[in-house]
């Protein structure tokens, strides 16, 4: 499938980012280890991975809730990791974060209208009822929602408010951290549809973070798969979700149950054993090797690099890379 046409302009450029956290008792936890990824304006980057893979840390670095230990984070051509005061305020207006549970970040005693007006006035934007009503309308809610309290809203309505709040400052980029994971199935489709519409109408760029490969497949133009602080596979949505190369992505693909009982259970050789290791003490070599069905000796000692598999598709796996090289040799 051809990519959606883009200006080729880069909205997000993350280079060699490293982020450690010091935690009591566990020592230093490496949340991100030399992660590089870029997103073109108007595109949706899907980020998939399980707990501890670093996907939420990436979201925090993009929105400058944290700064990297090393590497660079460029938003709309400017270094958000280095920005100060005025420039930072301006850049933060360009990139906004939407959380999994907007309820946790809404004041239960504040009416929705007041909550949205507050965001507008903090950013010194016009905050009258007209603008609040407009925002509500943008996310598909009636203007009367302004008079309600958070507890009077359903989960789906609250997530719409979370999105409206992010849109208040007219950002160009939204970072969405598991925005539909806490929602009921029947509501999930509504929010997904809303996001697609907003992306098209407002020309937004998305970073869509999820553990659900099925949802990411539907929404993303490009997909990055993360494991224990690293991107292990990256490429066009259909390649990564339908014909993944990395054994971890293949494991994820078979582990996410598809709502089709006609499909056979996954072959046992694709079921990964064990659990994600402690990020404070990541395995040597390839971090996936203790759980990998393909692991060889070199995987235990040498860390694989992200190398092109074909076109824009890249992955980090010794075994798959040398299989591909052998196949090329035979064909050529």
């Amino acid at each position, binding site marked *: 499938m051809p990519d959606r046409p883009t200006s080729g302009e880069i909205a997000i450029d993350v280079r060699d980012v490293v982020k450690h956290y010091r935690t009591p008792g566990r020592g230093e936890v490496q949340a991100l280890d030399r992660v590089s990824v870029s997103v073109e304006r108007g595109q949706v980057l899907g980020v998939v991975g399980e707990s501890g893979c670093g996907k939420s840390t990436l979201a925090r670095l993009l929105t400058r809730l944290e700064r990297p230990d090393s590497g660079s984070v460029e938003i709309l051509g400017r270094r958000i990791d280095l920005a100060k005061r005025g420039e930072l305020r301006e850049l933060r207006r360009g990139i906004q974060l939407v959380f999994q549970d907007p309820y946790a970040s809404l004041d239960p005693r504040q009416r929705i209208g007041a909550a949205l007006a507050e965001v507008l006035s903090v950013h010194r934007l016009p905050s009258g009822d007209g603008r609040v009503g407009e925002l509500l309308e943008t996310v598909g809610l009636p203007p009367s929602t302004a008079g309600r309290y958070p507890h009077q809203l359903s989960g789906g309505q609250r997530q719409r408010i979370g999105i409206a709040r992010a849109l208040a400052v007219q950002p160009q980029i939204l970072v969405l951290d598991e925005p539909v994971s806490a929602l009921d199935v029947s509501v999930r489709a509504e929010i997904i549809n809303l996001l697609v519409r907003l992306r098209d109408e407002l020309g937004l760029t998305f970073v869509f973070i999820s*553990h659900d490969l099925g949802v990411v497949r539907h929404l993303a133009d490009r997909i990055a798969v993360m494991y224990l602080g690293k991107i292990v596979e990256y490429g066009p949505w259909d390649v990564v979700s339908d014909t993944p190369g990395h054994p971890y992505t293949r494991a994820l693909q078979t582990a996410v*149950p598809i709502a089709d*009982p006609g499909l056979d259970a996954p072959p046992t050789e694709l079921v990964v054993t064990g659990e994600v290791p402690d990020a404070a003490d990541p395995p040597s070599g390839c971090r996936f090797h203790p759980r990998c069905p393909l692991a060889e000796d070199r995987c235990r000692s040498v860390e694989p690099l992200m190398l092109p598999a074909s076109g824009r598709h890249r992955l980090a796996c010794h075994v798959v890379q040398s299989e591909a090289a052998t196949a090329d040799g035979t064909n050529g």
Partner: protein
Amino acid sequence: MSEPILAVRGLHTAIRTPSGPLEILRGVDLEVDRGETLAVVGESGSGKSFTALSIAGLLPAGAEVTSGQVLLEGRDLVALREPERRTVRGAEVGMVYQDPMTSLNPMMRIGRQVTEGLQAHGWSKDAARDRAVTVLGEVGLPSPQALMRLYPHQLSGGMRQRVLIACAIAPRPKVLIADEPTTALDVTIQQQIIQLVARLRDEYGIAVVWITHDLGVVARIADRVAVVYAGRVTELARTRSLFATPHHPYTDGLLRSLPTPGDPHQAPLPQIGGSPVALSALPPGCPFAPRCAHRQDRCDTEEPPLIDRAGSRAACWVPREDWHAPSAGVTGRA
């Protein structure tokens, strides 16, 4: 067909609220055979967890079964008096919860978490200990002897869930009730737990009632499915029939709303619309009628019972043949 090992008939459960009792379950009917997995699927507030708790006899204070039967091999658990019910609970009906951290005692070693229940059901200390070691091995935990001396916080989420399953199956129950046991886990761990429960079911012939909101999980584990909406079963069917030919518009809507590989990329997904009905303000007719695309006049006045439909049962007056085509503007799935 032989008698089902577990049958729930017309189960009503109510909770106390400041404005009087509120019915959470309004007549739940379902059954499970030996060695079979029944998935109970529903959205938040549907009553799926109350169904599990009512069957297991573990309702919180302020909630009670007001009528109906829970028949375990023909014996009505609702009618039992408390001491007898306590014997049945745990020994014959085991329960596994969503969050293994809050349902294990953080101050208690793993060994005692497993043996305590067994001793409560009359096992001797030594027999309970032997059984605990065996059962921890059966659920796939490494070096069970050493594990017995650890505390819950020393285990990962996946291992803790295995410990909970070990606690539940240790007394060799006939029925295992699992309330969203994998929702808090990563997908690769979820897959391991699904395989474990399927193996235990096949090896010991346990009947499994698996409560979930995830239709993908349903497709992978269940022989049969009960879809719950507004405190009642709206559709009861074999898993393949339910996914291939749903007979309730709610089931149909849920299935259509899921993104699947066949969908056009980034195109709108069909959505049900509206929101689930509040149990405190039920309409006089079918509780799904206000959101239903196939509603007829009768639906607004009379609540449908479960009606036989081509091998499935659905609480819907309107047969599939009479449903309208998917509405325009929404990409329906053929």
